């Protein structure tokens, strides 16, 4: 019989090294996918992981994808550290895009320098608003936040759908389900001419820095850490767990909303149905792969962003579906959970 036993002395070093192990295992088993498809694994990996970032355009695209992932994952880390499982970042992202984007459409002939900051503010508010709903349900009715936040994602997507086919549809858009483009004052400045990488990168770095300070130096970070490790000890310390639930939901919602607004006012420039290639869900993997550590999250967001780019190139050059990117993301998560489990428990056959 297979037995599982808690290790008494599980290693902290291995805890931080296990993402690397997981990536190595993903590459190893991923190569079988290419073999099955009759492709040379080495050539395929080159196309998947190296060629996408072999020029300045590719590196810019890497940051375009990594920015929303990092911002959302940093926000989610607050929830996850507190043992609150906010799975609905995709919905909060969508709400941020609706709120912030709505401001852009409302003042669509504005040239004011204040338009973009206002859109950013409303983006964050929209995401935070959407995240408070599961927080209220959890604290008032003890509803499982995993279910409510996930279900609210689909509600948010339908609301966006309603706006882009309904009131916000571009009259000059040939009936396509999309809004008018935002005015120039409502567009996120790019960092280099001709490349899409935008100032969202700065926001990601600032949020990473703030998060690092919060986690390591502040009372709030301490409360999160204690609550995540032991709810009983957190009560003993006199912390108000319900308040912590609210704060962490609001922070993660605001981050996701911000990321949503950056997407629509940055690379996209308007509102339409598919504003996010599941950034809100993929960011969950990013957060855990980065060990809920702010710096780790920045690194893991770059790695996962690469799977997005690689999947696009693979579709182009290898003629395989871009869903392979999701397969790799899934494999990374699978092996990460596996290594974590084996680090924490001993498995043996008796």
């Amino acid at each position, binding site marked *: 019989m297979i037995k599982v036993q808690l290790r*008494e*002395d599980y290693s902290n070093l291995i805890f931080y090294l296990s993402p690397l192990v997981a990536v190595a295992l993903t590459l190893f088993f991923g190569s079988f996918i290419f073999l099955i498809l009759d492709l040379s694994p080495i050539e395929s990996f080159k196309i998947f992981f190296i060629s996408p970032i072999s020029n300045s355009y590719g590196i810019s695209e890497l940051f375009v994808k990594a920015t929303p992932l990092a911002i959302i994952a940093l926000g989610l880390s607050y929830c996850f550290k507190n043992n609150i499982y906010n799975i609905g970042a995709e919905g909060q992202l969508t709400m941020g895009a609706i709120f912030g984007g709505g401001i852009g459409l409302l003042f669509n002939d504005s040239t004011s320098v204040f338009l973009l900051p206002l859109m950013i503010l409303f983006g964050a508010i929209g995401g935070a608003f959407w995240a408070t709903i599961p927080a209220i349900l959890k604290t008032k009715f003890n509803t499982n936040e995993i279910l409510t936040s996930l279900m609210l994602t689909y509600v948010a997507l339908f609301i966006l759908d309603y706006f882009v086919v309904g009131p916000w549809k571009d009259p000059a858009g040939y009936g396509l389900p999309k809004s008018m483009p935002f005015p120039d004052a409502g567009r996120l400045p790019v960092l280099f001419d001709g490349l899409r990488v935008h100032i969202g990168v700065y926001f990601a770095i600032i949020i990473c820095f703030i998060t690092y300070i919060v986690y390591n*130096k*502040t*009372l*709030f970070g*301490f409360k999160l*850490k*204690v609550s995540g*490790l*032991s709810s*009983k*000890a957190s*009560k*003993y*310390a*006199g*912390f*108000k767990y319900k308040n912590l639930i609210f704060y962490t939901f609001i922070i993660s919602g605001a981050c996701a909303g911000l990321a949503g607004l950056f997407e629509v006012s940055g690379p996209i420039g308007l509102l339409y149905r598919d504003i996010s290639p599941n950034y809100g869900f993929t960011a969950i993997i990013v957060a855990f792969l980065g060990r809920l550590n702010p710096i780790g999250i920045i690194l893991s967001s770059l790695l996962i962003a690469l799977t997005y780019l690689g999947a696009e190139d693979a579709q182009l050059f290898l003629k395989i579906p871009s869903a392979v990117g999701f397969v790799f993301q899934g494999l990374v998560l699978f092996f990460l959970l596996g290594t974590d489990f084996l680090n924490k428990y001993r498995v043996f056959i008796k």
Partner: protein
Amino acid sequence: MRYIVEFKNIFKSYPGVIANDDVSFNIKEQSIHAILGENGAGKSTLVKILYGHVKPDSGEILINSNLAIINSPSTAKNLGINMVFQHFSLFESLTVAENLILGMNENISLTKLKDKSKTICDKYGFNLNLNSPISSLSVGQRQSVEIVRSLLNNPKILIMDEPTSVLTPDEIGKLFKIIKNLVKDGLTVIFISHKLEEIINLSDYVTIMRNGKVVSTISTQNENPETLGYKMLGYKVSKVKQVSKINFSQEIFNIKNLSTQSKDPFTINLNKIDLNLKKGQIFGIAGVAGNGQKELMEILLNENDYEFSGDIFFKDLNINNLSTFQRKSLSISYVTEERLGHSAVPEMSLSENIFLSMNHKSEFKKGDFINFEKINSFASDVIKSFNVDTPSYNVKAGKLSGGNLQKFIIGREIMSNPELLILSQPTWGIDAGSEAFIKKTIVELSQKGVSIIIISHDLDELLEVCHEISVLYEGSLSNPLNVEDINITKLGKYMGGLFD
């Protein structure tokens, strides 16, 4: 008499500790053989090896002079070895008979089982109603169920792990009578304890263990608690003596007419509890576990807004509705029964565990930021003043031994300068050295004018340090008894609920 069990060079190590180091001794058939040692001496590991729960690294066990390979508890049972654990494994909502049949290996009908159980109960004087649900039983009765369950398997050897720790003095007497009768009828009992007097009263032989090794195996005939204690520890422990009658005057803490009306069948309702605590007084709340201690502590801490009626006053201020945080800010400190995961977080460093309980103090904060420098130096002070054996304040709390961690936690609370200190099971499960140190510290603290409430199952401990003791029984608190004129018979009666 021949030997029924022979341990030969048993060796078992865990990462960082040697639990059993070359353990060899023999147990005579039809005897009561005690295994004595401090917590962590290796007693539990050894009997778990005998019961097939733990596999030794090397060494052999002979049962009736035959080599026995005991891989699992079921092999042990087939060899006639049964064990009554310290923590019961009973289903609360099932009846006694249903619980008994669940423990049976053979197929047997419920009526047959009831007959068989009834015979055993009558013969040995277990007072059990086979049809009542476990949730309605006292702790002592639950233990009887566990023992009857073992006896149904017709064991040759019965291992009992600290069986008296949950019983009243009266119940202990009954249990000892039962054990002696069982041995007369052919059973061999292996009895684990760290209570010296019990071992002398009950057992024929005793094996003393220290740090995983056998110190000696001797007859208990010519021993007394002092000689046995010296052998167990390797040094003498001096008892603290509480200073006799003092006239306490200033009232610090009052509980008036405290009752609860919970509908949860698994909680005990408190019934009109009154308590007066004066400055510098140590007040003990005795009683068998499960008589409302948990609920009372819950209300004193107020972590979960537990509902109650009545009033609690701290220095004439009604604190009924004050949160844990507010109560701590008023200089009330707490040490809970559970160390790991309640009054300390095992995964966090000792420094962080200081701040866990001190986060209401402004000296450790700079606005919203934590002042780690101050905390670290405070942690060093606690470690030094309370003899905590650890290389640094960066060590994770979970790495400390029970006694060391408890010294650290109690030290932390004491150094926060409380006016009222509430301790739940302060010396439970820790080594005798730490225990003596903690008791001494508590007494000294009271002499400085700090009032202390101790909730404990350990009567000896309460009698040693307290000024007054009340007994908690089924949610009611007895009138306080002055320790000076207490006698153990009266206390025993109180613990059985016989007070007004």
